[in-house]
Every structure is written in C-alpha cells, then in structure tokens.
C-alpha cells in the first residue's frame, strides 16, 4: 500500500511500508549503502510525518517480507498476541509514542503488552523517538531472567566477563577471568569467544569454566560462544554446558548464512534445558545480534537495517533467552559510520529489545576504522546506563586481543556503578562480599596479594607449565 504526505507544497509518496520505514530511519551508513535511505533531510522528516499517521493495525496487515517466503515473518505473525494487542490496536504510530512515554503507562502495562509488539511496530515507533525518548521508554520496561542468578532487577546492571585470548590459551584466559572477578565482574556470565570452533578446544574451555564455577561456588553461568551445532554435539557427549550461544538475524536468509534454522535453535534450547544446570531458573539461551548483518549477508529484502535488527529480537524471544545483546559497533563504518550513528543504534536496539520483552544488553564497541573513540563509548555507555541496560561486556582494559575491537572494560563497569548507583545481580553481589572482593556496600576492597583466587590461579598456571 502507498503512503504519502505533503510538506510545504512537495508531495512525498512512499510506495510501501518497507520503503516508508527505510526513509523514516535516522540516517546511517548501512541504509545508504543499500540504496534505501531518504534522499534528503526533508524526505527523512516527511517519512516520519507520514509514519506517525500510520495505524499499528496497518503495520500488522502489511508484512515487510512475505509470509510464504520467510520463517521469521511466520514466527512474528503466528505468535502475535492479538488479545494483548487489542489495547493498542486503534493507535497510530505517533499516538503509540505518546502512549509509551505517558506517566499513565506503567512498567506492568508494558510487560503485558510485550507479546503484542511486533518488531515492525517497535522499529516504527523508535523512528519517531529522540534519544531521550528511547532512554525513558526503555527504562520503564522490566525484564528479569534467571539461571544461577537473577538478572534485570531494577537498580542493577550485570557484566559479561569476556576473557578472550588470541590462541585460546587456557592459563591466559584464566588470568583474565581472575582479573575480571577481582574487579567485581561476571554476573551476566563468563563468556569466552573461542579463536577456533574446534570441538576439542571448546570442550576444554567448558570444563575449565565448570571447574572454576564449582570450586568457588560462583553464582554465575558459563558460555563458550561456539556455533549452536558444536554446542549440540558437546551436550550430547555430556560436556558441562550452561548456556547455548548463537548469532541470529532478522530474516530466514540471514539465519541461513549463519548456518542455523529455527528448528535448530529449538533443539538446542530443549537440550540445554534438559540438563537442568540452572539453580534459580531455566533461561539457557544467549543470543547476539547487530544492525547490518542482514545486508552483509545479502539477505535484507530491501528492509532497513534497524527493522531487520528488531526482527532478530522476534527470533530471540521465541526461546526465552537469559541474555541477548546487540554488538552495536562491531560490524564497521559501512553500516554505522561514527559515534553518533553507533549511539543512535545502541539506544534503538536496547529500546526495541526491551519493549519486545527481552533481557537486553549491549556490547558498547567500535572498530579502529570507525569514526569513534573512547569518548564516544563513554557517551553510549552513559546513555545506556540511564536507559537501564541489562548488561554490558567486561573486557580487560576494553581491548579484546582476540576479536580485535574495543568494548567496555571492568573499569567502565565501575564507572557506571559509581555514576548511577547500580548494583550487581544480588546472588553475585553476595558472593563477592563472601570472597572479600567487595565490602558490604558492593565497593571493591583493596586486594590482598595473597587473595585465594589469585594465588590458586597462579599455582594452577605453574602446574600446567610443568606438566608433560
């Protein structure tokens, strides 16, 4: 269906909802690269004006990618909660923005509404929102998940401890884990990106993490971020697996390029749940996403990159994940050019994920060929903390020596806690105090050189060195 709007005598016509959404998107490199961005600043605002008058019902009635052609579209429509939708069905996108920001709309209402929000609705309304709107609306969304601790409680922010090593050296990884734990990080999970997906290597890492978590009784969960098929094989062989990781995208073809199907994710979710390794809950999936992945795979169907990203969240929520994060600046400047575009995308992704009911974290990050630096990341991190981000990454010194990009550091987490008064997951906070890493208020203590964790990590490393 065609949409149009007249601005100061110029009539702008948008032949479909897909085109309208793309033209209404705040400017970004990936949409320009795909040739679907607004041609002028005025056309961009004309598209927003047009979109503000489109009804939510109309969005539901016009799938961007055909039902017959795409299993993500089928997932979105088949699982849509029409009863919950009734409360907002008569609204336009513009009215929906006002509704989200109204004091009359509570956290409880938004939680009930989540299954009625399709990715296209979330993406559409986000395009009419300023950065501060994305912050306030996301702040109201509460999403709590559990495995060995409780994530997403109000007033908390968690950290994934990311101890990567360029050659998967276990003593190097352990050293980075000890560093992170001593800085009070690791409640979201201890998650290693392996340099190689070889099952034997992944298994060695999983066993090491399992030993560590059991020996110190750390109320957290482990993850080695291998392909879901590798994880399935390892689980079948009895290798201790807490969370199953997978990168996902917002179209069937994107997921195919990742070597996955929805059935495969379902199988992995069931397999990991059946292990019953969680102590306080059974959210076992960990998903990563990022704007630009669909275009990069040639699988975007002309849909703008932010809407494609929101569609990935529909995939995620079908599997009740413990953790979901957008890796916002990793993909490079051809998709998000500079700090301004990365900030915008981070706030959009976090908002859309939360509105749809996901435990949304953000990998606040950039590459060296993007127009961005540590100052930009400070702004992104601060804005996300204000928005109530569920978790961020903790990489030693913000420098991931395996993946070759810059993320947030253990120190960055301390900064956020101090600036915003945010706590860790309560079970983990208690453990840090018992381990004499923090005091009762959650402040880091001055570490003793003979701290048990450090002494034992060093001893284990020495032992490995002398092993035959």
């Amino acid at each position, binding site marked *: 269906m065609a949409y149009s709007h007249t601005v100061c005598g110029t009539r702008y016509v948008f032949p479909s909802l897909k085109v309208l959404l793309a033209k209404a998107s705040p400017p970004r490199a990936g949409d320009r690269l795909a040739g679907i961005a607004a041609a002028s600043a005025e056309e961009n605002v004309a598209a927003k004006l047009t979109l503000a008058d489109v009804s939510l019902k109309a969005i539901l009635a016009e799938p961007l990618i055909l039902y017959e052609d795409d299993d993500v579209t089928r997932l979105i429509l088949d699982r849509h909660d029409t009863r919950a939708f009734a409360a907002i069905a008569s609204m336009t996108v513009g009215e929906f923005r006002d509704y989200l920001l109204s004091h009359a709309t509570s956290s409880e209402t938004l939680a009930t509404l989540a299954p009625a929000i399709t990715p296209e609705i979330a993406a559409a309304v986000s395009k009419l929102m300023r950065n501060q709107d994305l912050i306030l609306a996301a702040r109201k969304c509460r999403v709590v998940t559990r495995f060995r601790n409780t994530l997403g409680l109000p007033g908390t922010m968690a950290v994934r401890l990311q101890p990567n*090593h360029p050659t998967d050296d276990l003593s*190097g990884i352990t050293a980075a884990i000890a560093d992170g734990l001593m800085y009070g990080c690791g409640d979201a999970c201890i998650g290693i990106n392996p340099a190689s997906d070889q099952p034997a290597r992944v298994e060695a890492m999983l066993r090491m993490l399992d030993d560590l978590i059991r020996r110190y009784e750390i109320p957290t969960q482990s993850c080695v971020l291998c392909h879901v098929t590798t994880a399935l094989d390892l689980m079948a062989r009895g290798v201790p697996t807490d969370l199953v990781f997978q990168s996902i995208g917002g179209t069937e073809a994107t997921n195919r390029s990742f070597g996955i199907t929805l059935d495969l994710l379902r199988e992995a979710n069931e397999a990991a749940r059946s292990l019953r390794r969680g102590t306080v809950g059974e959210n076992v999936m960990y998903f990563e996403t990022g704007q630009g992945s669909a275009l990069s795979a040639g699988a975007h169907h002309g849909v703008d990159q932010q809407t494609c990203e929101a569609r990935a969240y529909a995939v995620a929520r079908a599997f009740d994940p413990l953790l979901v994060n957008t890796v916002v600046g990793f993909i490079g400047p*051809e998709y998000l050019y500079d700090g301004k575009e990365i900030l915008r995308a981070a706030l959009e992704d976090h908002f859309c994920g939360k509105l749809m009911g996901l435990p949304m974290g953000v990998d606040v990050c950039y590459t*060296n*060929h993007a127009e961005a630096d540590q100052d930009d990341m400070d702004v992104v991190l601060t804005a996300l903390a204000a928005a109530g981000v569920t978790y961020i990454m903790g*990489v030693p*010194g913000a*420098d991931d020596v395996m993946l070759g990009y810059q993320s947030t550091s253990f120190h960055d987490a301390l*900064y956020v806690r101090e600036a915003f008064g945010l706590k860790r997951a309560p079970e983990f906070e208690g453990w840090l105090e018992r381990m004499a890493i923090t005091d009762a208020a959650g402040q880091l203590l001055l570490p003793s050189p003979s701290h048990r964790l*450090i002494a034992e990590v060093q001893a284990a490393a020495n032992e490995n060195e002398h092993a035959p």
Partner: protein
Amino acid sequence: MSDVPRDPWKHLRARTPARIALGRTGASLPTREVLSFALAHAQARDAVHARLDRSALAVQMRALGLDTVVAESEARDRATYLRRPDLGRQLDDRSRERIKAAVQNETCDLVLMIGDGLSATAVASHAPALVEAVLLHVNALGLKLGPTVIAESARVALGDEVGELLGARLVAVLIGERPGLTAADSLSVYLTYLPRRGRTDAERNCISNIRPGGLAPEVAAANLAWLVKAALAMQVTGVALKDRSGGGLEGTIGATVLDEPGR
C-alpha cells in the same frame, strides 16, 4: 607520570596479551593506562588513514625485476572508501585502461595485486619482503607471472577485475588488514582461482596476520606457494581447497575469515 600501582596479580600479565592488572584510582584507570591505550588507538587510526606511497612501492617492485602498473578504485577518498566497500571493489576507468595496456600475453599463471586495504602501513612495511620471498617460489615452480598491480583504495575483490583483465589463472591480493590495538601493521594475502568480477569470499583462500610477532614473510610465502600449486592442480580456491600445508598457529590460514577488509 602516574604512580598508581598495578594490581598485586601483575605477574599474571605474562599469561596473556590482554590488559590485565591495570590498577585503578577510584573507579578509573590510572593516567598511565589511559594514555597507553590512547597511543595504541592513535597508531591504529593513523594506519587506517595513511596513504599508500605507490611510487615508492613501485620502485621497490621494479628493483625485484617486476613490471608494475598503478591503479585506483572508484572510491575517491578515505571517507568514501570506508563507507562504500562496493566502490573499493571497482577499478576506475583510467586504471582499467592502464591495466589493459599492460597486458603482455593472453594468459599468465599468477598476478600479484598489492592494495592498501585498511592499513597502508602494513603494506609499506611488509609487502616488499613478502613479494621477495614469494618470487623465490614463483621461480622454483616455473610460473608465468603477469605485471604487478599496485592499487590504492582497494578492497580484496578489486583483484578479481585486475586478474580478469590480465588473463590470470590466479590472483594473489596482498592487502592491509583492519588494524587492531596490538598490531596496526598486519598484512594478509587472498588467493582466488580464475578471478572474475562477482567472485565471493567463499571462493578465496586467505593467509593472515603477516607481521613481526605474527607470521614471518618466508613462512607466509611458503604457505602461499603450497596453495598456488594446489589451486592450479585442483583448479579451485576457497572452501573446496582445504589447507594441508600445516600453516603455523601464530598466523591463520583458511578458506574464509570473519573480517577481511574486502567484504
């Protein structure tokens, strides 16, 4: 500058290149660490934005006995290059004419294209040594080498058109990798059989991390020679050509990479 002590587990720094045991002042990094990070990032940024001195490189290549042609892609400046990978994969018209004029024979076995990619620093620092090492193998294998193309604002796939114009059975693209904080001067080689516009990354083999502290030029050249021989025998490159040369762990060699500069 700053006497904030490192953390008492600083001895663990021997286990990993990661930035651990940095110490802290309050919640924040010590001055020493803020500036050390800033320096590494500045070097990486400079490498991304450095321009390749093509004439200096051409002089070095001619000293090795090679014929050279200089070329550039349709990406006119660095900002365009970074935003528009598609333009970095297309030769501009003048370059296309220059390359056509340089055709010596109808066909050749191998063409070397040296492109700046995301680190002209890597190319300037390591390409001459790598080419010198590769030439030993080219001569030993008796391969017919086409002219060497030195290209600015180049993505990996620019080599497809270059190789096609020169009638090459194989094109080896030597190109600067995306700079990291630890190394801003890492070089890669991508090998493509029967280069044609529109080839995909799955149809290439890659040798990466060629730099001091990574893969030595001699080792990379030996790996490349193995791949060249195998590719000519099997008439294929990419996922169908598994590397069995035993490439070192310190470098990576394989059919695909996560983040090559030409995607």
